[in-house]
Each structure stands twice: as structure tokens, then as C-alpha cells.
């Protein structure tokens, strides 16, 4: 451990101050350029429409919050309904994903059965399949089940572990847990289900939380799925509602457009602020050697 830290400190002590300053300036500039559009968008949402196109500054001359209520009721259904729909879909997806992916990951990482490696290989394989190839038959399937224009096509697959990415994430994590726990529990007469429920799951809260948060974010941001399966405007998610707004009043009322855009980003932003540690760690582990 000390070895790892030592490189950074060796570097730091050896580096001349102007190089450090140079790096900081570069990084600051980079972050500013990257975040500028976001900040500008927020600034534009609190500006009157006429000011938006003239100014590039991040501090509005006149603060005007009226865009928010205007955008909220801009379509014939208020954005509140869209937020509610997105929330339901996302929460249900999180539940489904966490349950089904942890079950699959547990089987693949802790249990022995013939064909285990094949199953794991197939799971990784599905990561490479673009959704387009299953899109049409899935649509036809849901059409015949009369599930189109409901949340079911978006939520039910989550309960069937179709997001192999999370199986992968959880498998990596489970493999890191000591096997002695399992062995001790088996000797005590625990069934695999009990081991899963009472030992593995409680120890995996960070990984499960990571999976949950990522699922929420991906589902919240999902546009294509709702685009093809939700046709009634009352079932729209925020992403669809936002695009609907863009196509109508959004072309002229840009501050309302940006106001609604800001609102749709808020949940993701909030999750990021509170859980960035988890998220970053989650991403990092996917790249490390299996």
C-alpha cells in the first residue's frame, strides 16, 4: 500500500511548482469548458427569453423564475405526471434488477453446477448484442400480449436479469467475499438460499447500492424504450415529455425549455452528489482485471 502512495508523493516532492500550477490551470480550464454548457443552461432557465441569445455570461442580469411554472404546465399534461411516471418505472426497474441480477450473480460466483461457465459466458455475450436485434420481435411479443402503451415492457424485463452489466458488476464483488463464510454456513446446515439472503446480501450493500443507483440513472435517462412503448401522453416519462415540449413550445420559449431540462436532470444530479463515491468505485471495478 505504501508503495502505491509513494509514487505520488515522490512525484509531488520532485515536481517544480510551476509544473503543478500548469497542471492545475489546465485542469481548471478543462473543467470550466466541460461544465460551461450545464451552467449556461441553468442560467438561461432563469433569464427572460429575449436575453438568452445575446448573453454568454453565467450570471443573469435579470433573474426570472417564471419559466419554471410556464414549462411545468406547457404541455396539456403537467410535467408532474411525467415525473411520477418516470419515478414508478425507475423504482420498479431498480427492484427488478437488484433482485434478478443478484440471484444470477450469486449462482454464477458461489454455486457449482454443470454449465456454470457457459452461462457466465453467455451473460457476457449478451453485453455485446445491440438491442436493435431483439427490438422488433420484442415489440411484436409485447404487442401480442397487449402490453404496449403500458409500463410493463419497460419494467418486466428487469425482473429477468436482462442487464448483464449488473450481473457482471455483482459477480466481481461476490468473488471478493471470503469463501470461508459460505463453508461455515454450509457446515451449520444453511441452504444456499439462506446463505444468499443472510450472508452474501448484507455484506454486499455497497455493490447492491451501486447497481441500484446506476439502474435508476439509466432508466431515468432511457429514451428509446419509452419512445416505442409509451404512446399515450399520460404515460410519458420525463424524457418523452421533454422532447414533446421541444417540438412544440420549446422552439420559441427557450427559458421554459431549459427550465424543464434542468428539472429532469435534478434527480440524476442529486444521486451523483450523494453517491459519487459509490458510482466511481463501481465503474472502476468493471475495468480491473477479472
Amino acid at each position, binding site marked *: 500500500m505504501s508503495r502505491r502512495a509513494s509514487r505520488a508523493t515522490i512525484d509531488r516532492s520532485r515536481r517544480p511548482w510551476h509544473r503543478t500550477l500548469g497542471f492545475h490551470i489546465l485542469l481548471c480550464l478543462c473543467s470550466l469548458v466541460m461544465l460551461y454548457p450545464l451552467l449556461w443552461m441553468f442560467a438561461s432557465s432563469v433569464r427572460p427569453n429575449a436575453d438568452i441569445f445575446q448573453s454568454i455570461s453565467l450570471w443573469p442580469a435579470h433573474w426570472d423564475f417564471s419559466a419554471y411554472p410556464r414549462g411545468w404546465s406547457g404541455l*396539456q399534461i403537467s410535467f408532474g*405526471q411525467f415525473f*411520477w*411516471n418516470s419515478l*414508478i418505472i425507475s423504482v*420498479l426497474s431498480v427492484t427488478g434488477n437488484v433482485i434478478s441480477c443478484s440471484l444470477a450473480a450469486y449462482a454464477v460466483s458461489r454455486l457449482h453446477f454443470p454449465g456454470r461457465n457457459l452461462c457466465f459466458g453467455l451473460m457476457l455475450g449478451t453485453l455485446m448484442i445491440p438491442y436493435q436485434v431483439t427490438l422488433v420481435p420484442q415489440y411484436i411479443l409485447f*404487442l401480442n400480449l*397487449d*402490453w*404496449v*402503451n*403500458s*409500463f*410493463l415492457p419497460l419494467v418486466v424485463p428487469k425482473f429477468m436479469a436482462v442487464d448483464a452489466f449488473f450481473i457482471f458488476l455483482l459477480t466481481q464483488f461476490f468473488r471478493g467475499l471470503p469463501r470461508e463464510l459460505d463453508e461455515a454456513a454450509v457446515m451449520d446446515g444453511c441452504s444456499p438460499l439462506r446463505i444468499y439472503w443472510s450472508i452474501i446480501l448484507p455484506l454486499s450493500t455497497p455493490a447492491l447500492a451501486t447497481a441500484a443507483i446506476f439502474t435508476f440513472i439509466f432508466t431515468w435517462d432511457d429514451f428509446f424504450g419509452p419512445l*416505442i412503448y409509451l*404512446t*399515450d*401522453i*399520460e*404515460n410519458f416519462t420525463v424524457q418523452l415529455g421533454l422532447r*414533446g415540449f421541444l*417540438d*412544440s*413550445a420549446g*422552439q*420559441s420559449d427557450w427559458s421554459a425549455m431549459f427550465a424543464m431540462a434542468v428539472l429532469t436532470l435534478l434527480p440524476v444530479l442529486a444521486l451523483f452528489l450523494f453517491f459519487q463515491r459509490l458510482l466511481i468505485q463501481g465503474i472502476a471495478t468493471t475495468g480491473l482485471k477479472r
Partner: protein
Amino acid sequence: MDRITLNRRHMLGGSLALGALAGTAKAQTATRIRSYWWGAKERADRTNKVAEMYMAAHPGITIAGETLGWGDYWTRMATQAAGRNLPDLIQMDYGYIFDYARRRALLPLDGFVGKELDLSGFTQPSIDGGKVDGKIYGVSLGLNSTALVYDRETFEQFGIEKPEWPMTWDELGTRMAALTKAANRPGYWGMTDNGGSGPAFEVWLAERGKNMYNDEGKFGADAADMADWFGFWARMRDMGACVAPEVQALDKLDIDTNGVSQGKCALTFTNSNQLVGFQSLNKRKLDMAMYPAGASKTKSGQYLKPSQMFSIAATSKVPAETARLLSYYVADIEAGRVLGVERGIPASAPVRAAIEPALDDLGRKGANYIAFISDKVRDLPPPPPRGAGEVLALMVRMNETIGFRKLSVADAAKQFMRECDSIIARG
């Protein structure tokens, strides 16, 4: 067969139902009618107002309205039709009604006439306009035709001659180039670039004696025609008479993104009923005029048509109630007052008579325009075949290709014909 939609409405409905059970009030199940139309905010406001009036007069009916811009409207309809999930009351267009009726996606309305559907004020031609293969599939919401909408104040400000009938295409071009020059403002031109506009092309072609689609559903123009048409607009671009290609590329063929509404030009090619919608988005005074005429200045390629129609989905669970609602929209006097002439001049004579005296300036302009052109227009052309929508998209793309100098006019015309034939053949 309830569709399982897990949304708040269902949950609220569930708890309300429980509450009603506990109470003594007799439960009256609300009938829900879904309606669907295209248009901008002005139309949505009026349509929703009529829906509210209807709901007030008929407790127990709820009307859920949904609207989209023209661009997405037909895509959504195609998907919903395939999903057997079309809304009950659908706004239809002359160019698409044949396709949908023949696909059995629409309900024949003959059975409702005289009962739920009151067409007594309609002339026979207006009823016939909504017929496919002898049965009524659509009821006209109003009469319209193509029209130029232009910013009168700007014309007067720069002393440009207004585009009044009769005027040739070249004359229009000259005036527009003059306007651009007089305005002398970067990012401002005379008119929108309508080289990709199917309706404009149709009128121009008709003045040459050809229909865009003939009776057999074949494309009626040839490569020489296309080269002339695209060539005209290429000249317009070079003269500066119309907006630059990268500005036109942002036009999504609706009122909000149109160059006139965005303050980029002073004139556009559109439909007569859209004057109302345009004026609501523009501070300056707008006026209407006919499309340019052929060289002889006597013939117009325009025609009168039902601007939109209301149809009922074949899969509707509440056809009779929907028919009653449809009747309200087209035949009720109060509804007619609210809808005005935003969708065209109402086809029902009593409604027309009732709203005529109360028409505001805009409404009067619309009515006068239709009256003015009535003796100059030609007959309704044959309906377009399947694939016509794709041909419209192809026209836009070819016009852009020339505009951005990817292809010469001659080559683009040839490629257009190739792809157009392929689209029509595919069906």
C-alpha cells in the same frame, strides 16, 4: 381487457372506486374518449376548449386530448395503428386517409349519419371529400387551400410590391430578392426555401398541366420537371431571395420552426387556415395571398380541399360516443364559434352563417381568401399512393443536397426520379 397501465390515474381511480363503494352515491363509470390531432398551440387551445365545453354538457364523459407536430404525427399514428391502439377521434389528412381506410384502421361512418352524426349542413361535395371507396371515413373540419403568408408590415416598410394575384414565380423571386437587399440585415431574407415542399411543387406542376400523382398512383413528373423546379429554387438561393440552406434545414414544417415565425424572412408557402396560428406567434401584421401562377397568369394550380378531417378508429371501444363528439366539433354552433376558421372555413352551412358576422380580422381574411380563389382553382387531384410521405421527405433531402452543393441540379433531379420510382414501386 383492461390495459394494465400502472400509473397514478389508475391508483387514484382505484382509491376513488373504493370510496364510492363505501358511499351511497350511485357509481357512474366515466366514458373516456381519446382524441388526437396535429397543430400548434393555437389549435390545441381551441380544440381543448371545445372538449371542455362538451364535457361540461355531458357529465360522465372525459376527453383526453393529445397533439403533436406534423413531423411526428404520422410516425406515431403508424405505430399506434400497428399496435391496434389508435385514439378514438383522429385528425386525418387527405393525403393519408386512403391508406388508413384501406388498411381498415378507420371506421366507416355512414351508419352514424343522421343519428349521432349530424351532417345536415354539409353540401354533398364536402361529404364526398371524406369518402374512400364509396364509404364515409372522414368528416371535413374545414375547407382550405394553399396560400402564401407574408409579413405585410415589412413589405410596406421597404416598399416592396405585395405578392397579390396574379404573379408569376419569377416575379415573386425578383420581389423577394429586392426585399432581402432592402432589409440589408444579416440573417434575414425574403422568403423561406420551399424547394423541398411537396404542396408547393404540386401547385407549380399543375400549372404545367400535370398532376403530382396520376390516377394509377404513379408519380406524374419527370426528370426535366424536377430539374426545372429545383433549378428555380437554386436560382432563388443564389439571388438571395430565400433563406440560406442551413437556416432552412431547421424548419420542421410546422408553424413554430418556420422562418417567418423565427424572424428570418417575410414570406412563406403554407395553407390558408394557418394564418391564424402564424399570427398568434408573430407580432407583425400578416396577410395572405395566392401561390404564384403559371406564365400565362390565368391558371392556378391550387385546389380547395378539406383541410383536415376527423375520423374514428376502427378499434375504438366507444364509437357511438365518439361519433357524437365528432358531430359536436363539426356541427355545433358554439363549438364552431370557438374553433373559428383556424382549421379552415367550416363545411357546415349553419356554422358558417353563425360565425360569419362575428369573424375577427383574421377570420375575415380567411373567409375572403376562400371566396376569392373559388373561381380560380382546379378540381381535387387524385389521392396520393402509399409512399407519398416518403417522397415528401425525399424532396426535402434533395433540395438540401442541392442547397449544400453536394450535387448539381441536373444530377439531383435524376437521383430524385430514381429514388422516387423506387419508393412508389415499393408501396
